[in-house]
């Protein structure tokens, strides 16, 4: 079975990072993706060589790839007193047909009794054609909930953590009980500057780089700088669609607004 890894999950890809910079061509961007993927592939057979395709979702939507160069290397391997083989044989850079996200596919091989191909490092240097995708809106709260008028610029950035998440509905456990909604962040947002009008504060946000053709849910989590007056804080979406769907011909959605309220149960 193929192994799929998400570069947004530190448990699946360690120290995942990317930088991007401009080229002289409009609509093109150059990017460098790096990380240490964690397939944690183990087996107990040194009579055969096993092959496996490992896919790393780089979590970056693109229209097309212009040029690319990929480097790979084994990063964590182990064996216990047997014949062995470890290999990252080849790589393919591809675009997910649905979400348009960049994917790195690595063909690996392993043998040993036991052997572990725990991690491999990768670096992808790529020029892509892209367009800005984004979800944007405003988070509002009243002065009664939290007086933010004296916050520094740094503290404003720590008020909320905003992300665009996919939703996985987990079925009820065997024997009864309730199912669960599990939200998986695929892109994170940045906060703008704090403004207020009367007793109402507002913080704009933008989530860039969200994937296409996926049902996305805007999630706002309370940050360490937000000190609500009440014991319980609730974030409610007050504007825009839910879920949000981005298309290649409609890559941005704005007006996805939220309001934060707080109360104390007596």
């Amino acid at each position, binding site marked *: 079975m193929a192994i799929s890894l998400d570069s947004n999950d530190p448990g699946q890809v360690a120290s995942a990072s*990317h*930088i991007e*910079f401009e080229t002289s061509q409009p609509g093109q961007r150059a990017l460098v993706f790096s990380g*240490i993927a964690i397939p944690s592939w183990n087996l107990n057979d040194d009579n055969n060589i096993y092959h496996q395709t490992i896919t790393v979702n780089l979590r970056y939507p693109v229209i097309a790839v212009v040029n690319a160069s990929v480097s790979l*290397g*084994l*990063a964590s*391997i182990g064996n216990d*007193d047997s014949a062995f083989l470890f290999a990252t044989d080849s790589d393919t850079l591809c675009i997910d047909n649905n979400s348009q996200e960049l994917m790195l596919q690595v063909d690996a091989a392993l043998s040993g009794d036991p052997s572990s191909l725990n991690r491999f490092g990768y670096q992808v240097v790529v020029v892509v054609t892209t367009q800005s995708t984004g979800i944007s809106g405003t988070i509002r709260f009243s002065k009664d909930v939290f007086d933010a008028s004296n916050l520094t610029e740094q503290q404003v950035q720590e008020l909320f953590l905003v992300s665009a998440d996919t939703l996985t509905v987990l079925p009820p456990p065997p024997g009864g009980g309730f199912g669960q909604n599990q939200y998986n962040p695929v892109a994170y947002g940045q906060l703008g500057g704090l403004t207020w009008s009367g007793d109402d504060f507002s913080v704009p946000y933008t989530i860039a780089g969200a994937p296409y053709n996926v049902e996305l849910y805007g999630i706002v989590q309370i940050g360490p700088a937000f000190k609500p007056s009440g014991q319980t804080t609730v974030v409610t979406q007050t504007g825009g669609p839910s879920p949000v769907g981005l298309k290649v011909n409609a890559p941005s959605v704005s007006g996805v607004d939220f309001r934060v309220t707080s109360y104390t149960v007596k």
Partner: protein
Amino acid sequence: MSCTPVNVFVPQVTRIPITGPAPFNTLVCCCVVGSAPIPGAGIGYVTRAEVTMGTDFVLADFDQRVPPVFQHSTAAWLAGIGPGEDDTWLYAVDNVSDTGFDPVTGQYFINLDVGVMYPHIPSQFQGGIQFNIYYISVCSYVLVHEPPKAGSPLPFPLRSAVRKQDHGGKLLGRAVNRGAVVPFVVPCNAPPTFQATFVTGSASSAQLNTCPSQCDCCRESRCARGGRRVGAELFVRD
């Protein structure tokens, strides 16, 4: 098959001018292969450590009063391991834990979380390799802002070389000795009378210079000793 050598200054740090995003104007690519000098903890135990890999990248016009603004994307993997036989072993580069600039020198460094369980060294190696080999390769792309070069073909000022040039010397090139930059400077056109006794870098024996004791460029005591290496600088013939 013939080929023409590419004249690359060392250290081999590639700087690519870029137009953005602000405030960055340079993309730096620096790669390094180094050993992870961590001890083994014995059979059946994994030693974990954080190791620092220094690179040849020094931020131009680094000012230790100003924290550098930079972004990076860094990958790491195993470059060489072994030897071992009939044993349990593990070599792991788990994480790029940190990157930054040395606050004193401005040298770019990379921190890695590594782990290792060394195997038993094969008996047939006992007469030769008697230590475990653990080499790691790191490659980092760094977005930085560096001031434009002011008429110099080199990416950053060579103060000692400039000082020697004031004495009539001529800059030939540079070499690297364990990470230290060694400028080659010609102090004078005088006929040779001594030979440097310790040479590092790529200077050929034909370039070695000797100086007459009456030469204004050399100190009398230096010539009287028959030549020596002073600091990190070598004196070579034009």
